[in-house]
């Protein structure tokens, strides 16, 4: 697909919003988040909130810049800030967190309801809330701790990569808004090419371990990061080094699935296991209350 030129730092002035374009739905897309030029302004958070029409509650300051403090059913993307001091040099590593749109989505694999979590041909993973039963398995299935349940309607919400905009040939609202072009959107191949250029430039500035975060454990992702320290993604507010889908989730969809047809027993059993192994959805409810 053609990338909205606005997102390249090249023109003296912003181009007007491009007209809707013919969209090649099979082409794999990706959002590239260049943490090395992200200024942590939170414009992406606000744009996401506006385009997708949600508002989290006004929270509190707990001594850091992270607000809202975590992802939530009404906070599909948040900035995370981490101060790292090594060899007398301080770095303030800022990462935009949100759904990674895995090629092998743990949430979808875990979901017991056919069609409630879909993966489009272009790679976007979307929850169809009309079909969501609120079981919370997707939350357990996600290795990035992204999907969040709404305590009111019990359904689960997360970033859908502005699938409505993408199908109209537009970039997601976060990418459209980013003032430094730290968020880019286009075909996955184009984004990898751009990332390689950025990584070469970072290496020339002395970041020997600069690299792309596109983890294999989930088959690669459709949201990728450029990191100064690709060897230590955990420095970026606990970005997992080797994210994988929990064996419990694979087990449920593998061995148990044929039995699922006999009824709900398996589902309850898995639910019990999930609660024991991963922790309850209620914990997120608690989180939400704290934010109120």
């Amino acid at each position, binding site marked *: 697909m053609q990338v909205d030129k606005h997102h390249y730092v090249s023109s*003296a*002035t912003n181009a007007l919003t491009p007209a809707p374009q013919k969209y090649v739905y099979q082409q794999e897309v990706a959002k590239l988040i260049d943490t090395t030029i992200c200024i942590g302004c939170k414009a992406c958070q606000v744009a996401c909130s506006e385009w997708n029409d949600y508002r989290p509650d006004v929270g509190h300051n707990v001594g*850091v810049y992270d607000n*809202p403090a975590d992802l939530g059913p009404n906070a599909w993307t948040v900035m995370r800030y981490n101060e790292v001091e090594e060899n007398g040099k301080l770095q303030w590593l800022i990462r935009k967190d949100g759904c990674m749109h895995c090629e092998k989505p743990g949430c979808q694999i875990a979901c017991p309801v056919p069609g409630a979590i879909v993966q489009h041909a272009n790679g976007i993973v979307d929850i169809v809330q009309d079909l969501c039963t609120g079981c919370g398995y997707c939350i357990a299935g996600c290795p990035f701790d992204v999907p969040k349940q709404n305590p009111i309607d019990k359904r689960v919400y997360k970033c859908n990569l502005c699938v409505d905009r993408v199908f109209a040939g537009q970039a997601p609202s976060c990418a459209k808004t980013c003032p*430094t072009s730290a968020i880019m959107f286009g075909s996955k191949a184009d984004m990898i090419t751009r990332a390689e250029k950025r990584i070469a430039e970072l290496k020339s500035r002395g970041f020997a371990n600069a690299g792309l975060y596109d983890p294999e454990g989930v088959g690669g992702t459709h949201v990728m990061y450029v990191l100064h320290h690709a060897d230590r993604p955990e420095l970026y507010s606990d970005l997992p080094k080797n994210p994988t889908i929990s064996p419990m989730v694979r087990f449920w969809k593998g061995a148990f699935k044929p039995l699922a047809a006999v009824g709900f027993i398996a589902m309850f059993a898995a639910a019990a296991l999930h609660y024991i192994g991963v922790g309850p959805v209620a914990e997120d409810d608690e989180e939400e209350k704290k934010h109120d």
Partner: protein
Amino acid sequence: MTNHWVDIKNANLVVVMGGNPAEAHPVGFRWAIDAKINNGAKLMVIDPRFTRSAAQADEYVQLRAGTDITFLLGVIHYLITNDKIQHEYVRNYTNASFLVRDDFAFNDGLFSGYNADRRAYDRTSWAYQFDEQGFAKRDPSLTHPRCVWNLLREHVSRYTPDVVENICGTSQERFKVACELIAETSAPDKTMTSLYALGWTEHTVGAQNIRAMAIIQLLLGNMGMPGGGINALRGHTNVQGITDLGIMATALPGYLALPSERAHPDLRTFLSVVTPKLQVQGQVNYWGNYPKFFTSLLKSFYGDKATPENDFGFNWLPKWDRLNDFMYTMSAMEDGKLNGCICQGVNVLAMFPDSNKSIRALSKLKYLVVIDPLDNETSAFWENHGEFNDVNPASIQTEVFRLPSSCFAEEEGSRVNSGRWLQWHWKGADVPGDGRNDTQNIAGIMMAVRRLYEQEGGKAVEPLLNMSWNYANPEQPSPVEVTREMNGRALADLADANGNIVVRKGQQLSGFGQLRDDGTTACGCWIYSGSWTEAGNQMARRDNADPSGLGNTPGWAWAWPLNRRVLYNRASMDPQGNPWDPKRKLLWWNGAVWTGYDVPDFTAAPPGSAVTPFIMQQDGVGGLFAQGKMAEGPFPEHYEPVESPIGTNPLHPNVVVNPAARLMENDTKNLGTPDEFPYVATTYRLTEHFHALTKASKLNAITQPEAFAEISETLAKKVGVKSGDTIQISSKRGVIKVKAAVTKRIKKLRVNGQDVETVGIPIHWGFKGETVKGHMANRLTTAIGDANTQTPEFKAFLVNVKKA
């Protein structure tokens, strides 16, 4: 800005000092990122705090708040001693070779001419030596002991790396890193851009902070160069516009002076005093056209009533007796000398220094009119909000009138950005409810007062009744009418030197070159002349073509003056007209005139002529020595903030603070000392908010919900708090309670043999809006300001911190 936002991409080194563009100017900061990615530029941030700009920097250098001049004069000392100077530029384009009077001196912290009783200088000796023809004496060999070059060298010789370390708290090793990076841009094909904002201006030595960097940029040959310059990052979308239109209490539109009661009895005297005299034979001295700009302004003010016989209405102008700036006004209000106040476009209570003083002052008024889109703290200063505004409404008799006004998107008009671009914008929505546009509010008051005078008579009504007010609807002048008036028009047919009519009576002027001093032209702001010509509204142009690739976009909007994008651009070439750097070629000589990608900032003097590029200066060159133009000295000098954590000035203990800073008793009686208030506080803005405005917006409130202050890990340990605890911060003027953000991004410094801790206090909260109710940071700040501009010292004052 001498340059403009997009031009930042051309820099080899972006130095952010006295600003934090990643947070305060996130959209413009894209061009700093662009310089890094596409031009291989280095980004260096020099700041008391490791900010979100510092997070992007190749090098971050910490210094103590309020010591920028020491740092910068240390850099000058380094450049001179290590011979990192663009010599050809300095010799030809600066006043390095000019001889200074023999009675000019600097001793023990004071320049010659100081009057301690008046806290002011007689600036007579801060001047050149002149020959019998009245032109400045020069020594091109730079060997004369009285030439500016040698005086500058002598002046900065005290600022050695160990002095910098002792005063700023910056290690000599980090200081050297900074010096070396800056020095690299002395090469003719390398440039540094200087980005600054309120971190430099909000000091008692604010204007001299900028002067110090201007000297560095001249020594490096970076003025007039694409990717160079001194670039003020303006805060509000149109604060450049309000500055252009006379924000200072003694200024008129276009940086013209408001006449003074004492010195300017009539127009002729005024013009003879304020019009600069030529100091070097053959130079341009463009300000020599002052009478044309000023007479045209009077014709714009008073129309047909302004005639040569009545000095074009000169005597109807208000004359200043003292500097009636906002801080003087607040003190006078506190003293009961004012009974009414119209407050438009500012939230006094939240944004002015010393909020408790503001409350005392506003409580003395008979009436207060607040023109604002929001129900803000100022219009509610009399309401009790518990600990956040603990006043007794019964004891306050001020009657408050709220006039709801429009927001920026609810009216059309022009805005001037930091790069001097006048950009037209269109109305996006109607004003809700009873709201009215600002022009409607002000014109409505003006017309009502006029009617009262017409009906009832009164003293000194001429200024009001003689004012030209030819608008289709006098109650609401339209932005189109007002901006056309700014541009100016011919009041008679205008002929050129050969007698050919070039502009017909009634036509819009095409530029300020057409202005006359005989009353045949009217112009509301001479530097805007050319923005709305017979060819239409130039500010509405939207062609982003960039023929040079340097980001100049001459067809996008319109830049003052004359659509010029880079000021002093003749200085981007050597005297023969060859660009210092072929990759930055802006202009060239076509055999008859200068032409190119930008509007030449020059005359038609051919290559190799003796005419020098700084045509607005009466000497034609960039000023390393400022003559008599600054309040506290022709060279910058380090003075401590009025509240200093070390209580002395290590360079000259007898002169600790700026000797020309205005000290009013209302403020000096409330100054704290380090024994009681040991920590340095600095206030600032965050990306997530705009001043005290956006706390009214829920989306902004979500992203930064609650007041906090940033302290180092060492200070947190000392006072026994951890991140997220509530702390009490006090100054001599007030107390606030906020959350503590304990961070590695602020460090304890070692200054003059003692430890100095910094407390960072964002300013965005108050008792109105969608955020968590909070204490106003300005309860702590002091209302003592810069000696030239009276901008308050928000960036360095003393506090104490305790666990709440």
